[in-house]
């Protein structure tokens, strides 16, 4: 069974991006399992590991979760036009050791939601750049969900049908990339 890991860049309870991941999960085929990673808040600030230093347990857990997944779907908010520091920090940990890290050649896709008009479009672009640098296989698509407080319908779908279809398309591309990997 294919496994997809969801990572939300927001730590907030009731995060729009976590909800976006949950909506994305409804578009997965039955033979694909989906799990949302919950450890982002436990990752310490990045510090290059030196020989003999124990790797923080939370970092090992993140690397293991990424490693065990066939693909990763990241949903990011946008802070000051860019990626939340906590998400970047976690990816910096996940990128080590380079180049044989858990994200290497891993199919990944980026989506995002913000309460402004632009749906974290700049954060998504920067996140794709970071993931490409790390060596992941990045789906070349974006999903800016703006005005996130009004973007979700009651039926676990995005209220805008075109946007929901775009989300389903990205999920489909990610699943295809995972099957091909």
């Amino acid at each position: 069974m294919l496994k997809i890991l969801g990572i939300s860049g927001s730590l907030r309870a009731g995060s729009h991006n976590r909800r976006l991941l949950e909506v994305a999960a409804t578009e997965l085929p039955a033979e694909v399992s989906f799990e949302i990673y919950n450890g982002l808040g436990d990752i310490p600030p990045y510090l290059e590991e030196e020989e003999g230093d124990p790797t923080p347990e939370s970092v090992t857990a993140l690397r293991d979760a990424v490693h065990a997944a066939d693909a990763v779907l990241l949903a990011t908010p946008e802070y000051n036009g860019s990626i939340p520091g906590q998400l970047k920090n976690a990816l910096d940990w996940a990128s080590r050791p380079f180049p044989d890290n858990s994200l290497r050649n891993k199919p990944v896709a980026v989506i995002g939601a913000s309460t402004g008009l632009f749906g974290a479009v700049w954060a998504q672009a920067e996140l794709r750049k970071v993931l490409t640098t790390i060596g992941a296989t990045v789906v070349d698509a974006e999903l800016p969900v703006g005005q996130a407080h009004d973007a979700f319908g009651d039926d676990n779908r995005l209220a805008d049908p075109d946007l929901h279809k775009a989300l389903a398309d990205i999920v489909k591309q990610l699943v295809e990339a995972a099957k091909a990997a």
Partner: protein
Amino acid sequence: MTASTQALAGTFVADQVHSSFQFTVRHMGVGKFSAKFDDFDVTVVGDEQGVRVEGAVRVESISIKQPDFRGHVVSGADFFDGSNYPELSFRSTKVALNDDGTAQIDGELTIKGITKPFSATGTYLPVTEDPWGGLRSGVDFEATVDRRDWNFGWQAPLPKGGDALGWQVTLTAHAELVKQA
């Protein structure tokens, strides 16, 4: 051929419930964003000198609720700068109500202390008696302006090219005019 004086003789004000003043701007190159102002005053006077219109909308009454987004649009110097300029106002210099129901209004639009000539086209409906014995008319106008003319300079390039927010803004006014005793 105009029928200005006959069409709207007397003093009329825009009904607060059945009138709307809205702007629409393209965002992300594909979508459209609209918001309206709920607090406004519009007075129309028709006499032997023709028809004159004066109106104002209050920035604070904009229909954006999310606090960060609202804060930027209402207070941002690159948007409405509402604490310094709490109102947008308009006064007509020429109103043409044509026999075929079309209309043109020329005047001056003042936003953020900047007054510029402004023209809108639309339609009007002749005065009719409402069920409560009052007299009403309806007018619909639309105009497209370049927001830079009123110093709404906010812009950001999209990651994949193009402007985040269109420079052209469509203004639409629907006013249900109620004749004053």
